[in-house]
């Protein structure tokens, strides 16, 4: 059943033209086919999880062969079907979201459509999510190819009270539309009928772009002098959106026109406030939304779509902010802070380690190890067991464990992308966009990893601002949990900490965005559906994260203990602490807290654990001040090294010094205000 593909590699792809290259291409495409195999073929396209493979099985009788697309590792399922007297090959192409590919799979799907010239395209969409599905359907329709829109999962849509006017949809989108239920086979005959009796109007311009973009499209379309298998307007759209393959093809095909085309693209972009890709994507989605609303009616009595309602509530500021505050209160404060860092740590550190494990190890070491220095290394004040193991297992593990459990549930629910949209507007005031939610959220897990992720920000300006804010005001999960646990008995102290950190985040971000030149960032993303978190997923992710954290944290805590032990026996440690003492005294903290800040430089969570053990020595005001300074305090060694590597020495040193000065200044200012106004938190 396998269709032999031509053997050309991805590097050698060139767009197929009707007039000049079709003969060569047909020869090429057929050259590898076995005798008796189909010459015409049907492409199955669509986003993942729309029932494409079910449709493929229905059409081919599940007789599929899998082979990689030439020059790639991407697998394509192939089968055959006889329609009338002709045999057709059917290829189940990899899932794709747009003709503008991001992954290799999407690129293969696009290349197969543009290069291998399917006789028909069955584009499968989920009837329940037309708004998300139509953009690609519209792009395909604009290519002018023989596309049939297969609106699948109609049974599920009907259950939700969704009714679609298929004739109207066909008219709007310019291609035949067939409703199906691939699971039961309903609508398959209609699909076959439309293949055999294909009818589409002349080329239909589905997407009405803004005036400037339309003008650019028309100019480019007019310049393209070759005859292509897809419509010039469609090629122009891909060129404007800077599709690399299309640019390579046109540069090869029409070198004499290419420079002119690029100048039109530049000119068009200059006339827009946002990037071309962004503006075009927004327009396509607006049009998809309009068409969906025009062709769909929803029986509200029948449709109780809680997901959609929740979705709207989460992304609208008026309801989204209270939901965010509720999530923060219950998840971070109640679950991680009060339960994880309070109840669980009390039990593990106080009972298990305090009463059983540490005394037993201390007893064994005292009896078995004769050398006092070695005893100090293992069970001394900063020993491997008393400090390293206790901090890592008894204090940090329960905190990050509860955080990872809660975070995995939030992640699995699909809330994070909604959070991005919610705070996009707020982030734009500090030179970032909703995209920056990714490093900020990951920073709660580990700021070092999150600093690397700032690479995903669109501009250098965004990358630097995100790096600065991560170093300054984003505490890691362990630090956050410990701070919540420490401040939980003093709600006013907790409120002060939240306000100071938030004010610093916004103020520093705002000033940085004003000082650093650059364009206003743009942000656009498709929202995946909301869902109830799967327990198996949540547990699996939590377990994986805990294993990762232990692998990372245990060796470092042990190394830190050894380094501190070495510094102590060589007499260096007291000097460092003595050097820090005036600083901590200046912000109203006892001298002993100097240890905490020194530990914090090794790892943020190490410092947090130190503060946790010192809580009985501090009053509410001192707890609030130390929590503020520890949160704003310089990034740990690992994060600093990544900052050097990612942002360069000059920026990294600048951020380091700024953060150091800000942390102690804020601590000093807070101490001054509390003392002057005689406030006890």
């Amino acid at each position, binding site marked *: 059943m396998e269709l032999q593909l031509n053997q050309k590699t991805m590097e050698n792809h060139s767009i197929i033209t009707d007039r000049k290259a079709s003969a060569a291409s047909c020869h090429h495409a057929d050259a590898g086919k076995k005798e008796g195999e189909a010459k015409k073929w049907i492409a199955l396209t669509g986003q993942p999880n729309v029932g494409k493979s079910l449709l493929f099985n229905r059409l081919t009788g599940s007789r599929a062969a899998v082979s990689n697309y030439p020059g790639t590792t991407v697998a394509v399922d192939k089968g055959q079907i006889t329609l009338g007297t002709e045999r057709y090959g059917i290829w189940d192409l990899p899932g794709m979201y747009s003709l503008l590919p991001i*992954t290799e799979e999407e690129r293969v799907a696009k290349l197969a459509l543009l290069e291998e010239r399917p006789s028909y395209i069955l584009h499968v969409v989920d009837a329940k999510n037309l708004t998300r599905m139509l953009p690609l359907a519209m792009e395909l329709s604009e290519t002018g190819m023989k596309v049939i829109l297969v609106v699948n999962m109609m049974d599920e849509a009907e259950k939700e009270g969704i009714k679609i006017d298929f004739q109207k949809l066909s008219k709007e989108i310019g291609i035949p539309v067939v409703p199906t239920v691939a699971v039961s086979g309903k609508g398959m005959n209609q699909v076959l009928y439309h293949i055999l009796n294909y009818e589409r109007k002349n080329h239909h311009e589905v997407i009405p772009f803004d005036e400037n973009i339309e003008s650019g499209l028309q100019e480019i379309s007019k310049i393209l002098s070759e005859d292509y298998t897809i419509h010039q307007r469609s090629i122009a759209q891909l060129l404007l959106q800077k599709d690399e393959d299309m640019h390579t093809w046109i540069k090869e095909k029409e070198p004499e026109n290419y420079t002119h085309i690029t100048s039109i693209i530049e000119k068009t972009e200059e006339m827009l406030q946002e990037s071309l890709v962004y503006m075009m994507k927004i327009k396509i989605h607006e049009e998809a939304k309009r068409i969906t609303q025009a062709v769909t009616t929803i029986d509200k009595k029948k449709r109780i779509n809680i997901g959609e309602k929740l979705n709207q509530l989460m992304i609208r500021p008026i309801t989204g902010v209270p939901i965010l505050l509720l999530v923060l209160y219950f998840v971070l404060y109640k679950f991680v802070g009060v339960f994880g860092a309070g109840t669980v740590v009390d039990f593990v550190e106080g009972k298990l380690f305090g009463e059983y494990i540490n005394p037993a190890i201390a007893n064994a070491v005292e009896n078995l190890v004769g050398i006092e220095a070695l005893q100090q290394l293992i069970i001394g004040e900063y020993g491997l067991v008393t400090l390293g193991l206790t901090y890592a297992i008894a204090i940090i593990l329960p905190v990050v464990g509860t955080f990872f459990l809660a975070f995995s549930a939030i992640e699995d629910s699909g809330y994070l992308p909604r959070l991005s949209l919610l705070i996009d507007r707020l982030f734009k005031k500090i030179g970032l966009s909703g995209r920056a939610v990714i490093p900020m959220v990951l920073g709660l897990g580990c700021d070092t*990893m999150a600093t690397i992720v700032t690479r995903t920000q669109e501009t250098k300006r965004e990358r630097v601002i995100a790096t600065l804010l991560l170093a300054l005001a984003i505490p890691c999960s362990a630090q956050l949990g410990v701070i919540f646990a420490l401040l939980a008995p003093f709600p006013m102290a907790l409120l002060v900490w939240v306000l100071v950190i938030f004010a610093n985040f916004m103020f520093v971000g705002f000033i940085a965005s004003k000082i650093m030149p650059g364009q206003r960032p743009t942000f656009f*993303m498709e929202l995946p559906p909301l869902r109830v978190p799967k327990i198996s997923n949540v547990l699996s992710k939590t377990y994986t994260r805990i*294993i990762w954290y232990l692998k990372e944290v245990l060796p470092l805590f042990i190394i830190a203990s050894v380094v501190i032990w070495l510094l102590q026996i060589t007499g260096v440690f007291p000097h460092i602490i003595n050097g820090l003492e005036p600083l901590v005294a200046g912000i109203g903290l006892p001298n002993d807290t100097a240890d905490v800040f020194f530990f914090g430089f090794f790892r943020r969570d190490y410092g947090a654990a130190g503060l946790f053990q010192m809580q009985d020595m501090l009053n509410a005001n001192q707890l609030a001040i130390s929590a503020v300074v520890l949160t704003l305090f310089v990034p740990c060694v690992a994060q600093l090294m990544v900052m050097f590597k*990612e942002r360069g020495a000059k920026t990294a040193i600048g951020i380091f010094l700024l953060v150091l000065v800000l942390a102690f200044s804020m601590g000093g200012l807070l101490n001054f205000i509390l003392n002057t106004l005689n406030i006890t938190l």
Partner: protein
Amino acid sequence: MKHRCAFCGMEFTDEQGISACGSCPLSNCNLVKCPNCGYESLPEAKSLSFIKNLFSKNKTKQD
């Protein structure tokens, strides 16, 4: 192995999920990065895969 981005829902393969640990000086945790939005996630722990395989083998034997 296929991944589904926990942030944007994009499906991608191992090869496409660029390891993000290249420039991290301390860890070798082989994070998998979504090619669409850059969100990073951990590949399933080996011990967890081992347990899952164990259970699936037992189940197959029972079947």
